[in-house]
């Protein structure tokens, strides 16, 4: 498998909303390439008629009884927020 390009690393970082320095990008090109090359060994396996395993449990759509129960108070929910205004999470403007 070919080495990951700088453009690919930048594209993935965009998807992950992850800021990276130039040095980090360089290092990740190298390290991710090595890890992915190793990971590609699973291509040796014949999985044509194998269903994917998505969970270790045979569970489906677990529902609970529909009754009200106390949750966090607004103060508790906002306690760790970086910025709060009038009982809400406060963010920078997203519209001009």
């Amino acid at each position, binding site marked *: 498998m070919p080495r990951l390009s700088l453009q690919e690393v930048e594209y993935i970082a965009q998807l992950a*909303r992850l*800021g990276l320095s130039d040095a980090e990008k360089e290092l990740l090109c190298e390290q*991710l390439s090595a890890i992915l090359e190793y990971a590609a060994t699973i291509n040796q396996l014949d999985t044509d008629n194998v269903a*994917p395993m998505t969970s270790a449990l045979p569970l489906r759509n677990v529902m609970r009884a529909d009754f009200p129960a106390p949750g966090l108070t607004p103060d508790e*929910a906002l306690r*760790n927020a970086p910025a709060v205004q009038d009982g809400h999470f406060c963010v920078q403007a997203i519209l001009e």
Partner: protein
Amino acid sequence: MTQTTELCDLSIHAALEQLRQGAISAVELTRAHLERIAALDGRLHAYITVTAEMALAQARQADERRARGEDAPLLGIPVAIKDVICTRDVRTTCGSRILENFVPPYDATAVRRLREAGAILLGKTNTDEFAMGSSTEHSAFFPTANPWDLERVPGGSSGGSAAAVAAGCAMGALGSDTGGSVRQPAALCGIVGLKPTYGRVSRYGLVAHGSSLDQIGVLTRDVRDAALLLRVIAGHDPRDATSLDAPVPDYVQGLGDATHLRGVKIGVPKEYFISGIEADVESAVREALRVMEEAGAQLVEISLPHTPYGIPIYYLIATAEASSNLARYDGVRYGLRVEDADMWQTFFRTRALGFGPEVKRRIMLGTYALSAGYYDAYYLKAQKARTLLRQDFERAFQQVEVLACPTTPDVAFRIGQKLDDPLQMYLSDVFTVSLNLVGMCGISVPCGFAKGLPVGLQLMGPPLGEDLLLRIAYAYQQRTDWHTHRPPLWTQVSAGG
């Protein structure tokens, strides 16, 4: 030995007996542990946060309850909690700058159950950032040292919990195990580490890493203590939709007192005795197999043919799940926010400064495996391969009751040795990741030494086979004394501190 050292050497079950007899108090026991932490943790760095005052207040309450004639399964027992498990009003950092000041408004269910059982919380233990690592070196704050050799890692990611228990700085601890993070540090620190079946213990309040793999486990100095802790934290929780609605057996009573293993079929998977495993580790584990055979167990050679694919499957699935789980750290509702020109730039900058190198690497790897064009080749392929791996184990458990193998291919490595080579670090999980992928249970118990450092014997069991694992591990422990060995630093604590 000072009295502090003696109190900190007690097993949980022995301490409970003395507490019930009134021979010691919860305050004495807690104070002894806090003194020992004060004396040793400057060298070990097992704790990120020590909650001394809260612990003493809880201990006083425990003594008052006892004075009123009350009892509870862990009343007065000081324990430690890995810092990826939420504790109400106590900072929970996940070993990360991004949550450095996060104070959860609620307890994880496992923590709530410990509190209700009367346990005392000494503090929060160090971990690789978001439990991503095998050495605790990826903590954003500091690495933890192995009590057996301060130049070496304690394993990870529950390295703080393992080091604290091995050094007598906690009677037991909670950890979390996504790919071996309870069993591997337990092995490298010479203690017992149990990873329950996926769903046996509620994940509510465990900060998510790989949601189809994560499970809270226990670290203790002997098998009976592991049974005691598991009995308290196991069970269904409506707050975790993936927790199993199955009755919890009395794991302690289930230990019995038999030291024989007559009629027990133990599978020995040949893929776990490969070249590359340290010779002295292999001979310690072979000797443990011989002890179990001598106790009446029948050893059966087994094949788990997809074992070599465990690491690649694991690092694709775990990182894919992690990249999705860690998307929540955006600097909006909790955690670090580093403001930039606009909201979009703030996301990038917050995550750039909040996450360390290993977390960034895994977010990148997981995002890649899930991205358009690569999803089928990596993530879906890994999920299919995961089915094959599970079929290996299902076939094996038709033939034998449990499997026995080394927990790790080598003893504790030197701090810094694998830090620059992530692939080498990942490979140190080769014997532990499969169990998480198949969702079954496992325990690591001390089984000897190699190069003067502890070696772990891993027993792996079928879904909800914890009672069986504990019973076999207990019989093994009854016939050996490895769990009674203490690291050299054990007695290096001067009187009164």
